[in-house]
């Protein structure tokens, strides 16, 4: 199994090296049935997102029509064709969170960040997505930022939460995507 490599800010990795890793992943999965989704997952792990040249390489490498690769990428919200921010904010809009104000939380987040769902702030700090249920229904509404889940979020608390991340990161600059 090819080592799963996340995006790393500590040392810059050349683009050539990223593509070399992609080729290794494709080579390993080429002959296996059902390879498309795992290869896409790993490619997103390597590049941070799935740019067009990467998807075309996967299409050719796995001998899958490009329309099918694109269809799978577009179907799963986990996949992104745009560079993502350093922190991924997911707003739960499962039933419980929805009825307890999840939608309002999402509106406030959109307004504070100045982006829509699926977009990334211009400083590459935050990306915003919608999710369905973290299993925190008793403490709805919930959002998650990276692996941290925030429960019983109130619209008035949102600025405070975002500020924490900005302060924490002010020491280290946001990741630069290739």
């Amino acid at each position, binding site marked *: 199994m090819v080592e799963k490599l996340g995006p790393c800010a500590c040392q810059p990795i050349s683009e050539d090296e990223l593509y070399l890793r992609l080729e290794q992943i494709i080579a390993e999965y080429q002959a296996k049935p059902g390879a498309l989704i795992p290869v896409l997952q790993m490619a997103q792990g390597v590049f941070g997102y799935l740019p067009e040249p990467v998807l075309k390489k996967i299409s*050719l490498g796995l001998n*899958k*029509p*490009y*329309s099918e690769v*694109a*269809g799978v990428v*577009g*179907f799963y919200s986990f996949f992104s064709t745009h560079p993502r921010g350093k922190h991924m904010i997911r707003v739960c809009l499962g039933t419980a969170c929805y009825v307890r104000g999840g939608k309002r939380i999402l509106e406030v987040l959109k307004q504070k960040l100045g982006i829509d769902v699926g977009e990334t702030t211009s400083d590459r700090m935050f990306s915003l997505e919608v999710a369905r249920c973290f299993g925190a229904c008793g403490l709805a509404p919930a959002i998650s930022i990276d692996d941290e889940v925030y429960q019983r979020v109130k619209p008035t608390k949102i600025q405070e939460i975002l500020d924490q991340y900005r302060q924490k990161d002010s020491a280290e600059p946001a990741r630069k995507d290739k």
Partner: protein
Amino acid sequence: MLKITINNQETQVHPGTTILQAARQLGIRIPTLCHTEKYAPVGACRVCLVEVEGTKSLVASCAMPVSNGMKVQTHSRRAREARKMVVELLLSAHDGECQTCDRNNDCELQSLAHEMGIREVTYPGEKGPKKIDQSTPALVRDAGKCILCRRCVAVCNQTQGVGGLFPQHRGFKSMIGPAFTNDLSDVVCVQCGQCAAICPVGAISEKDQIQEVWNALDDSTKHVVVQTAPAIRAALGECFGHPPGTLVTGKMVAALKKLGFAAVFDTNFAADLTILEEGTELLVRLKQALLENKPVALPQFTSCSPGWINYVEHFYPDMLPNISTCKSPQQMFGALAKTYYAKKLNKRPEDIFVVSIMPCTAKKYESQRPEMASSSVRDVDVVLTTRELARMITQAGIDFNSLPDEKMNAPLGLSSGAADIFANTGGVMEAALRTVYEIVTGKPLPFENLHVTPIVGLEGVKEASLKITGTVPDWSFLEGLTVNVAVAHGLGNARTLIERIRSNQGNYHFVEVMTCPGGCIGGGGQPRMTDDTVRLARIEAIYREDEGKSLRKSHENPDLKKLYEEFLGRPLSEKSHHLLHTRYTPKGLL
């Protein structure tokens, strides 16, 4: 065998039979929409819901296999109302515009809504994503009308192996289309139009060019001529109520004359010409390979089918040298009409306007290719599909069925039976063999009634071998050679054949490929719906047309001999090369 009771009638079916199939065996009709006989069921549309005793929810009968002892009600109140609601929901998202739709009166959704007694839009509201893609010369896709049945996805991926179309996005935003819902012109699409031929609604159609033809006919400075492809005469009648397999050659000619064309010519004439040029090219290649030991690309591939040319350019660019340099009959005709024929009338190429009637959408693309202007202007001006011609005839107020039979005009209207069979899979090969064998041996092709039976029919890849004996002196180096030929129709089958050739199997000398299943008679521009029964009926009609002629071999066409004497000289002459031959360009996949 499994026991099943449908609507209180008992029957026995083989394991693997679906409820839909079992019901049909009993003469019970369950409505369907996404279902086709040919492809594995996807259960996308839910129009075929039925009630199965003991299950909580209704099941899609097209996808549900029968289990032993199953009890089904197909037309209970619950089943009928559920199916009606499914269609009401489809209508809710469907950007209908029935009155102005290309498929008005020929739409499966419209028929279903009518059949189910839907007289109002029950759920008005938001429509699905609207996007009209007119990026290619051949096809128009209207996403607003798409009902996401996925028939086009099946034909594009499974039959043609092109993979241009696939479901994109999810839920209410779902669209069928090229990657990321790009335009068709931005992706690999061979423009064969099989998607348009199988679409149940008005979501994919040919680009309608009828108005351009009316404009030309109204332009007194233009001499407007028309050519009709071999496959039209065996299918056009279907648009006027005739059963598949009805030959309407004479009425078709009469209708075209009534429409106002100055001359009605036959693409078949150019098909005979193609045989002379392409057959000679094959013999030259064989001579170079066998006698002169020159490196030469073999097998030679036919080049009549523009979707196939597009396919090789994209998928197998390294095989382009194997493609015959001959233009397709349509383009040969265009080049001749604007030179040879124009000269006879003392007209300039730009004074002649050439309209083609083709069973094909890719022909629209082909006529626009930059290579196709060797008469100094565009060789073919407008291409209409069989369906467009039928509409034009209706628009002109012509009562097609009461027309007398008329004949094509000279000098580009006479053709042999060999040209007729260009319309179906195996036909170009048979026509070529009829001529090449006789050139080489001086004797007729040694098959009963000149039909090369191993390459007749709907099998995906067909082969035949023919030993050459008794050669005339010019071709004595071919004495004793066993000529191997292969035929494929449908690009998925073509891929199978190419992979076979690449792994050095078959040792073929000549290979015929037609883009569409069954050949041109099953083209993307033919009357809908084409299944194998329809294909076989049209093929049978074409062979009947061939056998009804005394002239059955291309090289015996007297008008063709005249063309060579007066104008071209001989096959592969310099003039032929300039007007009738071309080269194609590698395009790659992405």
